[in-house]
């Protein structure tokens, strides 16, 4: 994990020229298919759709649009809910797996499956599970007091948001629990022994030994979960389409909708610039958390 640590200087510095030849294919591919679209997208965010000239009109329209702010708040809610829920689920599963028991390898493998199933089949399965007539989720809902009819999962704004959060968390949790499990196993056993000698209860051991030990990993995973949930498009798009009445329309599907449903390419580009700014922040957060992680290991 100490990936940030600098490689010791190679004595063979004939390197330079060779290095550029070696990265040339990468630069060509990434330049054409990623860097150029990023830049041309930023450029088109400044194009006035009426006059064709360059100005800030898309941004001023966007910032004055209450729908845009609603999208940002919704994205924030979605990201925070997914972030907290996926970390708690991941930690819960990791704690459960952090002890020897028979069949542990099998359980570990099985619990990785949700991560490996592609998004489209996941969406298909959950669409059937929340079907208002036959969906198995209705069984769960009906266990709650006062629920006598099957809920209309995708017609109720709160339920729809709960569903897309649940599906996103379910698809993502195995990764978080595997990383946390590795972190848990790296906490030195002596610390637990010392705590036990001092008569610390299980909770106090968790609070004062386990948590501090895995804090750097949790910080890194919190940033990764932010990135993961910002990227989420397919599950939301296929399950709710951003509805009902935009209730699950986060930034990623909103941009897609502006571009491909309303053909407001320039407006979509302006929204994408906001998304790119968030990605810059996430990149900086990732780097700083990782640096700290590397320092801790030293």
């Amino acid at each position, binding site marked *: 994990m100490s990936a940030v640590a600098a490689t010791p200087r190679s004595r063979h510095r004939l390197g330079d020229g*060779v290095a550029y030849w070696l990265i040339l294919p990468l630069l060509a591919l990434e330049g054409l298919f990623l860097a150029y679209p990023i830049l041309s997208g930023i450029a088109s965010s400044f194009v006035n759709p009426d006059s064709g000239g360059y100005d800030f009109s898309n941004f001023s329209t966007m910032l004055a649009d209450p729908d845009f702010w609603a999208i940002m708040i919704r994205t924030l809610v979605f990201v925070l809910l997914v972030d907290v829920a996926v970390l708690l689920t991941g930690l819960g599963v990791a704690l459960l797996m952090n002890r020897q028991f028979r069949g542990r390898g099998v359980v570990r493998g*099985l619990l990785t499956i949700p991560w490996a199933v592609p998004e489209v089949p996941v969406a298909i399965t959950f669409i*059937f599970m929340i079907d208002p007539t036959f969906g198995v989720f209705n069984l769960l809902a009906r266990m709650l007091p006062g629920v006598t009819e099957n809920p209309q999962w995708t017609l109720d704004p709160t339920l729809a948001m709960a569903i897309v959060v649940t599906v996103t968390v379910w698809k993502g949790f195995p990764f978080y629990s595997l990383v946390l499990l590795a972190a848990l196993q790296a906490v030195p056993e002596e610390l637990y022994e010392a705590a036990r000698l001092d008569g610390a209860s299980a909770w106090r051991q968790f609070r004062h030994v386990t948590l501090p030990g895995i804090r750097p990993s949790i910080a890194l995973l919190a940033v990764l979960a932010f990135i993961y949930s910002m990227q989420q498009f397919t599950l939301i798009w296929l399950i709710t389409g951003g509805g009902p009445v935009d209730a699950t329309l986060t930034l990623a599907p909103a941009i897609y909708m502006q571009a491909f449903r309303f053909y407001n390419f320039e407006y979509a580009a302006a929204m994408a610039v906001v998304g790119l700014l968030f990605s810059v922040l996430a*990149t900086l957060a990732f780097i700083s958390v990782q640096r700290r992680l590397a320092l801790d290991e030293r």
Partner: protein
Amino acid sequence: MSSIGLAHPASRTDRTAAVAAILRAALILVVCFVLLFPVYWMVLNAIQPSEYSLSWPPSLLPRGFEWSNFRHLFEDKPIVDWLLKSTFVAAIVVAATLIVVVPAAYALSRLRWRGQNLLGLFLLFTQIMPGAMIVAPELTLFRTFGWTDNLTALAFLHAAFVVPLCTWILKSSFDAVPRELVEAALVDGCSHTAALWRIMLPLTRPGLVAVSVVAFFSSWNEYLFSSALITQSDLYTGSLGLATLITQLDTPLFVLMAAGVMFSVLPVAFYLAIQRHILRGLTAGAVKG
């Protein structure tokens, strides 16, 4: 527990430990059941007759099997064709990714050069950036070159998206090769290309396998760009074909679920086999070379 246990009669400690173990096992079973339920539900509804799936209240246990579901899937829907298209695209992605990533990972792992940190930063950023941010400019680019409805062009785009992650994975596996091995070869007059080909690659086969699997299935699973760039239904890949089944109201439920199962079998099998490698690469996304 052991220090406290000494104070008690042994039998009582044993019993507490046994009860704790049983509770623990029960908890693990319940957690597995809840977390794996959607997978179970997909498989169950793919293999049982639809009249059992489409009844209320749904039965949680299988009430009968109907293997002809899969025959219907293969007869009624071009699933084989979709999966072949997915395989075709993913195979190009693997080849393109390896060609790009192997030399780049070597340069990042073994050489020092100006702009190295900048490249690392760019790769990290593209990995973090949500794809939806550039889906419209990407379509414009593809239209300019006449690449829409072109699976090969789509494959190169998929490769561009997976290259950053694969570069980290392979770089970390190159980093693990002892420095002296390569340096000795270089001192003996070996070129960097030869050092890469004859020393690095044979020693990093697991890393190369991991990179290939990641590249293959990132393409196999991709939906957003495929749906934006491929419009002809005879060019549909698995994820596109499956997604259109959702909107075709006449698709029988078991066909939908059986298609989901067919599409998931490969990625699940391969990811389970190499999860440890991917894990290391995902968390070790290095910033500096």
